[in-house]
């Protein structure tokens, strides 16, 4: 199992804003107009490029009690998003607990919600074993 700590289990969603250029210089005032005029300084918005990194697939190592069962557990995790696909594999069964490998796939998986769902059901997220993210540039 992976050894990534709690820090890596945090929200895997970054938005990196890159300023392509400084704001355009203030326009020179036409002769005869002051700063309070309607033809005052230019307020053109700066051109900004946004890089959105979406979490597409994540593989989790989870320890959970026997109840709720695997089906209920997978349903609860899948209910965190509108297009999530959840594949749950029971790796090991103990007296009161079971170890699961949970694969969550979606267009933009919200790791915070998935973690909350796991904790709410009495589970414990041990590690994140695989992550697949896609970056997409999005100019505003």
């Amino acid at each position, binding site marked *: 199992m992976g050894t990534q700590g709690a820090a890596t289990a945090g929200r895997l969603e970054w938005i990196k804003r890159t300023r392509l250029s400084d704001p355009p210089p203030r326009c020179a005032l036409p002769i005869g107009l002051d700063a309070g005029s309607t033809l005052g300084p230019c307020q053109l918005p700066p051109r900004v490029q946004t890089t959105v990194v979406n979490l597409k697939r994540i593989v989790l190592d989870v*320890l*959970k*009690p026997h*109840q*709720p069962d695997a089906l209920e557990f997978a349903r609860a995790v899948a209910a965190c998003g509108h297009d999530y696909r959840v594949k749950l594999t029971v790796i090991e069964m*103990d*007296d*009161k*607990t079971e170890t699961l490998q949970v694969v969550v796939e979606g267009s933009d998986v919200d790791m915070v919600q998935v973690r909350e769902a796991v*904790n*709410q*059901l*009495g589970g*414990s997220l041990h590690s994140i074993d695989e992550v697949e993210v896609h970056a997409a540039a999005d100019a505003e």
Partner: protein
Amino acid sequence: MGFGRVGFLLYLTRTHGIVRRYFVVNGFDGALTMLGIVTGFYVADGGDLDVVISACLGAAVALAMSGLSSAYISERAERRKALAELEASMMADLSSSDHGSAARWVPLWIGAVNGLAPFMLSLLIISPLGLAQAGLTLPLSPLLMAMVTALGVIFLLGVFLGQIGRTFWLLSGVQTLIIAVVTIAIILLLGR
């Protein structure tokens, strides 16, 4: 908290069967107690309806409080123990999870069922007494009507048990009815 949530927490703790069992056991207790009191008054040639109703209501309230408190205390201890064992296995604090919620709420529901079952069935059984007191004319004497109602309730509890155990409902109903009839017979014998 909706019924869906209640059902989920009962499922989580696997206490559906316990709730059902408490309902039947304490409901049967309540019905049989009312039958005994009403039969006792019948053997003693009736009496003032106010006195009968007061005696029955007192017993019903006592049964309700007994059922509520005993089930709540015992189930709370059981749920806490189960949660502590689960937390030890998980090596995590589960107090804010659904398991923690279940450990807090399930004993209350079980206590409520255990207390309300005898109380509601008792009210049903003594309802003919109240109707007679309100001036309604009954086909039988109020005490006999209450006894018949008690027999009906006990029979239905048997039918319910039969459905749970997937046995023939009539046989199960008759079995519980026999217990009630034997109870009446013993009271009648003692009252002579």
